[in-house]
C-alpha cells in the first residue's frame, strides 16, 4: 500500500474507542432509523435502507482487508454472492428456520474462505489481487454453469421461503427493514470490535511494515488468513440480506462488478475510517438511484463521477472529514499551548 492511503488514526472523541461507546452509538442509530421508518413509511426509503445495509456490511468487510490489513482483494464479491446463494439454496431445499440457515451460511463461507485464503495468501501484492480475482471469476463461472443447482444466468428461481421465527416475519417489509438495520448494527459492531482489538492493530502493523511485523514474532500468514476468513464471512452476511431483499440470488452478486463496486464504496467513503465504507455504500446507492432516474446513460454518468472523485478528490469523503477534524483539533491544541505560554 502506498503511503498516500495511510492516514492518521482519526479520533472523533478523545481517548480510545471503547465497546461501550460503540454500542451506545449503534443502539442510538438503530433507534433513530426505526423511528424514521415509523414517521416516514415510504417503500422507496425502506428498500433503499435495506440495500444500503447489505452493501455497507459488504464494503466494511472489504475494508477490513484493504484498509486495515493492506490486502487488496479484487475478488471479494465472491463471498457476497456465495452467501446469497448458500442462504437461498438452504432455505429452498432444506426448509430450515432462517437463523439456522444463516448459521449454516456463515459456517460454509468460513470453510470456503479458509480454503481459498490459504491458497491466495501465499502470494504477495498484485499477485494476491490477481488470484482473488481468478477465484471469484471461477465461482461466477460455476454459478453460471451449474444450472440445475443455481439456475444459471437466470439466478435462483422460485423465491426464498421466509418462515417466521421468534415472531419476526421477514416477508413483511417493516420486519425486514428492522432486521436489516439490526443486522447492520450488529455486524458493524463486531467488525468494529475486531478492528479495535489487538488483532486489529496487528493487521495495521502487517499493513504498514510486514517485515517488521514478522520480526516481532507475528505469524503474518496466519493473521492474514484470519482476516480473510472474517471478511469473507461478513461479506456473506451482506449477501444474505440482499438475498432476503430480492428473494433470490443472481450471478451478478458474485461478479467482478460487485467487487468493483465494493472498491468504489470504500475508496469513495474513505479507507482510513471505520464508518467510511458505510458512507460509501450510501453514496453509491444514492448515485445509482439518482442516475437511473435521471438518465438512461447510467454508465456514462457513474463513470464521470468516479473520474471526478479519483482524479480530483483522491480521498474518500470521511477521509476529508477526518483530516479536517484533526486539523481543527491540532489547531485548538496549538492555541491552548500558545495561550499557556503567554
Amino acid at each position, binding site marked *: 500500500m502506498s503511503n*498516500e492511503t495511510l492516514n492518521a488514526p482519526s479520533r472523533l472523541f478523545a481517548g480510545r474507542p471503547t465497546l461501550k461507546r460503540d454500542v451506545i452509538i449503534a443502539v442510538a442509530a438503530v433507534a433513530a432509523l426505526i423511528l424514521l421508518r415509523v414517521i416516514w413509511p415510504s417503500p422507496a426509503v425502506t428498500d433503499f435502507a435495506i440495500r444500503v445495509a447489505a452493501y455497507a456490511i459488504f464494503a466494511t468487510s472489504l475494508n477490513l482487508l484493504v484498509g486495515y490489513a493492506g490486502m487488496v482483494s479484487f475478488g471479494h464479491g465472491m463471498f457476497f454472492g456465495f452467501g446469497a446463494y448458500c442462504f437461498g439454496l438452504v432455505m429452498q431445499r432444506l426448509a430450515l428456520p432462517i437463523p439456522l440457515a444463516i448459521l449454516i451460511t456463515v459456517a460454509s463461507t468460513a470453510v470456503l474462505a479458509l480454503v481459498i485464503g490459504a491458497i491466495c495468501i501465499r*502470494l504477495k*501484492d498484485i499477485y494476491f489481487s490477481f*488470484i482473488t480475482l481468478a477465484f471469484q*471469476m471461477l465461482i461466477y463461472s460455476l454459478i453460471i454453469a451449474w444450472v440445475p443447482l443455481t439456475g444459471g444466468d437466470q439466478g435462483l428461481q422460485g423465491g426464498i421461503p421466509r418462515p417466521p421465527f421468534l415472531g419476526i416475519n421477514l416477508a413483511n417489509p417493516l420486519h425486514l427493514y428492522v432486521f436489516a438495520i439490526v443486522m447492520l448494527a450488529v455486524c458493524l459492531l463486531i467488525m468494529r470490535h475486531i478492528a479495535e482489538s489487538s488483532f486489529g492493530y496487528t493487521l495495521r502493523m502487517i499493513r504498514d511494515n510486514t517485515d517488521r511485523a514478522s520480526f516481532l514474532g507475528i505469524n503474518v500468514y496466519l493473521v492474514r488468513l484470519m482476516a480473510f476468513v472474517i471478511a469473507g464471512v461478513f461479506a456473506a452476511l451482506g449477501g444474505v440480506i440482499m438475498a432476503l431483499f430480492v428473494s433470490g440470488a443472481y450471478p451478478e452478486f458474485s461478479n467482478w462488478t460487485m467487487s468493483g463496486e465494493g472498491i468504489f464504496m470504500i*475508496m469513495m467513503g474513505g479507507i482510513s475510517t471505520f464508518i467510511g465504507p458505510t458512507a460509501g455504500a450510501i453514496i453509491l446507492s444514492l448515485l445509482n438511484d439518482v442516475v437511473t432516474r435521471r438518465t438512461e446513460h447510467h454508465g*456514462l454518468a457513474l463513470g464521470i463521477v468516479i473520474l471526478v472523485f*479519483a482524479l480530483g478528490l483522491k480521498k474518500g469523503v470521511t477521509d476529508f472529514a477526518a483530516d479536517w477534524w484533526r486539523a481543527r483539533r491540532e489547531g485548538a491544541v496549538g492555541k491552548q499551548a500558545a495561550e499557556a505560554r503567554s
Partner: protein
Amino acid sequence: MDLNALGACLVSPSCLVTQTTSGLIIGLLLFLVAAGLTLIFGVLNVVNFAHGSFYMMGAYFAFTVYNVTGSYALAILGAALGVALFSVVFERFFMSRVYGGNVLMQLLVCYAFILILDDVVKIVWGPEFKSMGMPDYFRRPPLFIAGGVVPVFYLFLMGMTVLIGIGLWLIIGYTRFGKVVRAAAVNPQMVSALGINTGLVYASVFALGGLLAGLAGALAVPVRSLVSGMGFSILIESFIVTVIGGMGSIVGALVGAILVGMVRSYGSIGFPLFVEGLMFLLMAVILVLKPSGLFGKEA
C-alpha cells in the same frame, strides 16, 4: 460436460484442423491484446484495466472506416491510429495522475473509463449487435485441410498477427526506441537522468500497447460481432494470458495466448458452459505454482 464429443473431436482430423485453427485465431488475436497489456505493465508497472476498451474501440473504428471508405486496409489503419491517439490522451490526462499511488485508484480510473466508453459506444453506434461482414477480398471459398474448414480470412489473420508480432519484436529489441523502453522498464530514474523525457516514453508505450489492442479489434471485426461491452471478456482473457505467460514478457503473452486459445476452442466442445471456469482454473494453478508466470521475472 460433454467429454464424448471432445474425445470424438480429438481423433477426427477434420475436427482437429477446424478446432486448432479456431484456437490459433483466438490465441493470436489475444496475443496482440495481451502483448499490449504486458508491455504497459512491464514498463509502467500499471495494470491497464481499460485495455479491453481499446480493443472495442479498434473494432468500432474499423467498422466505421470500412463503412465509409469500403476499404478494409484503411479500416485497419484507421483503427490503429485512432486507438493509439486515444491511448495517449488516456495516459497523459488520466492515468498519469494516478501513477505511483494506490493500485485501487488506477483500477477505479480504468473502471470509470470502461463505464464511460461502453455508454459512448451505445450512444454513437447504438446498443444493438453490429456486424461488418467479410470484406470482398476475402469472400472466397475456404480451404479444406484434412477435411477441416479453414476460411481464407483466417490465414490472413494468422499472417497479420505473426507479422505484427515480428514487428513488435524488432521494435523492442532492435530500435533505439525499444532500448529506451526496455531501460525505462528497469530503471526509470536513470532514463530520466540521461535526459530522456520519460513522459514521452510512457505515452508512447501506452500508444503502442493501445495500438496493439486496437489492431486486434480491427482484425477481429470481420469474424466477430460488435456490441458495447465486448471489451470486457477480452480484458479478462488477456489478463489471464498475461498472468499465465508472465507480466512483462511478450514471449509469455504469445505462449499464454495460444494456450488459452486452444483451451477455449477445445474446451467449448467438452465443457461448453464452463469454458471460462477452465481458464480461471488454469490461471489459479499457474499462480500457485509459479506466481510470476511461465516466462515472467521472479518478483
